[in-house]
């Protein structure tokens, strides 16, 4: 949100502006809404995807116009609708030449209050097309290489990444990270600058790997740069963030988590069958209801009360456990570790409800460490 105050404005220099911003048209369009010497339009709403030049345009514009700006990012969707309506008519309220410019990645329709409000001017910043991206990225030529060579590199880069990422900022970042690798054969004297095909052959697998690792931030940019300098085998040893999923837990916490998982994914009526030694005869047709079967894991975890969790816990844990305070505190520890989620409100002391928030793979790994065959106890896999 920018508030423009035109009192400070001395002169208006439009010619300098044009050369700076790639999306000149938009800028010119925008300029036409902002008048320094007369009241301008009270509010402008600009939307477009990430890195489509919104802030940049604004930044340059502000600089050029030499206006005072105040900016505070906030969640319009959360805030009171009345605040938004007030902002949109700020000009009337302060009786001064003020324009509110709202920047967003979301379309205006999502914000419009039910009660109706002053409609701002809508401006859409469309995503850059592939050729535009090519054009913009090619501007940042490495000083020691020719423009044509760099442009070829950008072309290859876009060929790999354009399908997954159109974020200009991210692409520029990736271009910087991988350029040294691209230049490698050139430095070794194997290839000429013009031999694009060979260069492509060299860089393509590397870029594919980058897409799976550094783009997803599985490895950090710093690590990625180090990896390029290392030998292939060494680099392979570096594991991404999501590779570390193993969590070491105290013994009873493991069983509490297992009990929570069972409570979340088994229907409560089947507890008798799983955890009672002499559960009597349960008719199979009745027990295995068709629609219920195999669907529990697709539907996600269901909430369960504390009593049920403890009942299952005492039944699955192999030794007699005294109901000590630390058992209960372990439940709340699991909640803070986000392995369990408390469904009921924090204030509800009586019969709180929880959900298990871990995956099947995770719980299987945990169960294996305590020699507990969890699949045998899951209704879905019966």
């Amino acid at each position, binding site marked *: 949100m920018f508030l423009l105050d035109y009192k400070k404005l001395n002169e208006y220099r439009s010619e300098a502006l044009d050369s700076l911003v790639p999306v000149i048209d938009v800028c010119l369009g925008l300029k036409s809404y902002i008048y320094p010497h007369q009241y301008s339009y009270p509010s402008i709403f600009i939307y477009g995807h990430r890195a489509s030049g919104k802030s940049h345009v604004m930044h340059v514009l502000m600089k050029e116009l030499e206006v005072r700006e105040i900016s505070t990012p906030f969640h319009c969707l959360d805030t009171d609708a009345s605040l938004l309506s007030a902002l949109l008519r700020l000009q009337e309220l302060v009786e001064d030449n003020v324009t509110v410019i709202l920047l967003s990645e979301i379309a205006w329709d999502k914000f419009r209050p039910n009660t109706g409000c002053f409609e701002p001017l809508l401006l859409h910043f469309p995503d850059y097309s592939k050729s535009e991206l090519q054009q913009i990225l090619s501007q940042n030529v490495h000083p020691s290489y020719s423009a044509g060579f760099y442009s070829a590199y950008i072309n290859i880069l876009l060929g790999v990444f354009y399908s997954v990422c159109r*974020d200009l900022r991210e692409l520029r970042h990736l271009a910087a990270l991988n350029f040294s690798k691209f230049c490698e054969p050139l430095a070794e004297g194997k290839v000429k600058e013009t031999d694009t095909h060979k260069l492509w052959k060299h860089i393509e697998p590397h870029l594919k790997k980058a897409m799976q690792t550094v783009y997803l*931030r599985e490895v*950090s*940019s710093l690590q990625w740069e180090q990896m390029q300098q290392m030998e292939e085998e060494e680099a392979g040893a570096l594991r991404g963030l999501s590779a570390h999923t193993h969590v070491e837990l*105290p013994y*009873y*916490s493991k069983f509490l988590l297992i009990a929570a998982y069972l409570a979340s994914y088994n229907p409560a009526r089947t507890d008798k069958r799983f955890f009672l030694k002499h559960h009597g005869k349960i008719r199979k047709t009745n027990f295995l209801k068709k629609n219920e079967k195999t669907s529990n894991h697709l539907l996600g975890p269901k909430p369960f009360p504390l009593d049920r969790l403890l009942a299952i816990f005492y039944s699955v844990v192999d030794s007699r456990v005294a*109901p000590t305070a630390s058992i209960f505190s372990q439940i709340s520890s699991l909640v803070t570790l*986000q392995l369990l989620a408390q469904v009921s409100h924090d204030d509800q002391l009586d019969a709180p409800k929880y959900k298990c928030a871990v995956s099947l793979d995770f719980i299987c790994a945990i169960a294996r460490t305590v020699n507990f065959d969890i699949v045998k106890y899951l209704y879905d896999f019966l």
Partner: protein
Amino acid sequence: MATSSVSKGCFVFKPSAKKKKKTLSLESYFVQGCEDAESSEIRFRLCQELWDEIKTDTEVLQDELNRTILDSLLDFTRKCSSTRQNSDWTSQMRASEIPTAALMLGVNVPDHDMTFQSLSDMLKQSVSPHVASVQAKECGALKHLMKKVLERLMDTVVVVDDEDEEENVETSPRVHRSMHCSLGILCDWYTARTKKSPTGTPGKKRSSQVRDEQQQPPVVIIFKDLEAFNPRVLQDFILICSQYIDRLPLTFIFGIATSPSTIQHMLPHSVSSLLCIELFQSLSCTQHLATVIDKLILASRIHFKLNGKVMQVLIGVFLYHDFSVRNFIKGLQLALLEHFHSQPLSVLCCKKKQALFNVTQLSKPNLDRIRQLPSFKRYVEKQEAQEQVNLMTDDSHLKEVCQQLIKDLHKYHKNYYPILRCLHTLTSSLPRYPLGKQIRELYLICLAKNVWENEDYQSAMKLVKMLAKGEMVSLLQKCVEILQLSKSKKMKNALVQLEELLAKFKQLDTATEMTPTVEASIPSPIKNLQKKTDLFQLQKTLLEMNESRRAKRLSPFENLRNEALEFIDNLVKSHLSPPESQPLYEVCYYSSSATVRRHLNATPRTSIQAALSNPYYYLQNDSLKSEDGTVSNTAPDICIAYKLHLECGRLINLYDWLEAYSTVVSAAEGNDQDSENFGKVDEVKHARFIRAVSALEFLGFIKSTKQKTDHVARLTWGGC
């Protein structure tokens, strides 16, 4: 205190300044209710000395353990701040990511505080004075998070740098607080600070070298418990920070208890792409515990010891409940305090010289206490008749003997731990770990009873007998290294013998080549085997074969291996006897596992049940005393109601319950059994009953049910 208010409620009474109680010193707390007040002062002092020693030891240990991870973390922050200041093409092109260290700390959250404390201290010392740490619970909303970060960053600097501006310290936080909370302010503040710093602010605790390489020290923000943060708040904060990254060199440190994938769960790609995340793995808590046990428990230098059961409780709490090393040390502290508080003879639990002196100062009642010690009684029984009489009657003789016994106890400890370690090195790598993988497991076995009588010990020894030469020699070499550290005479002797054995092993290499194999001369029964078809004969031959193989002359290596094993076995038998076998062991060993368990692992439900079924236990009122588990009818209402409800089935009829209650209470009031009013429900009894029932409902013993009118459902079973 009385109020003039007519309504019920809570009133705050500020204590008047005059009536302030004198705060008791630690010592007077200790002395209060202490057995044998005379020696309590000395005991308090000893206890405190020991605790101080343990405390500093743990701190040093903690620092050592954290050093590697902290060093790499410091490297990372330095590297980040240096790459940022580069101005080549790549760094200009790269999106300005916020360097972020994901610090994997494990689920033992209580221990993290210490780590973060030393981390932020080290960061302040060697990287940047601008370090702020935030916790999730103080940052429910973005506003709060921002406020905390600003406050901590700007305040610390005020305190650290301008020591001569003490007066400003008090006013400045207020100024900041009233200010508009935004990162822009922080930016301005930062620029102002860094402009000043090259000229050299006095009192800045940074070495000149560091200052040279960093004109712009990074601003480090530590998120202590990432999992607990509200993801929305965190995302917004990171988004805002990324807007200022070119002006403000921020660095984040995420403390993660579970796994790094948490970051991906909490932050969408659009946010995590603003971070340059690197992973740092800290030492696992089990390894940490192992080092703590190694340094504090298995050390003859600290004279206070835990017996097997107490150890078991502490290790159990660690493994089964919390994984927290800090809590383990707290448990140790509790045991230490309890020991010195409750055992008057703990005056002897100190360094040898002091202990010997304290023996001479023992009072008459304390000498009698020594005579009552079970271990001392066992010792007396072994003596001759005249000596027995002397020990029981002659105080000065007793003192002399005690001095000798204390000396023996110290020697015992000096020999015990090296041998324990040797045994551990020999057995810890055996298949299936018959004596445990960790030394604490072996220690528990040894504390419980004579380890050599243990089946596992025998099977372990059998396995050791099968070790190949290379392994055997390297293990013995490790034992030599352990024994070299010990200064006691016996251990030095053992060391010499072990070294001789090792030398023999090494000689074998050259000797085996010389001696020709004689095994060929033994007649092979296999040849005869083919002729016989009788089953009985076959069995006999096989048995013979087995015999002959056993009787077969052992190779020199096998001989030597057996010799070495026998040597180890003898060492174990002479030094690893359990502490209970040592006279006066009670002086050093704390053995009340029940106390420790009660304090560390509270059982609220058991306590409630104990209070309800046996009110005397807590109220200590003689009229409530009762045998055979019955509740006296003068007990509090809730106890009577509880007792009556135990006799009911799943559903309790409220009216029947009330009738029964009224009868019991009437009997307590001493009403005549035959009178008309006996057992009749009056208003007061009714009200008391209702109150008791609702209290039981609150405690979770019953709940209302719609299955039957005027009935409540029972929720607990058993546990009378």
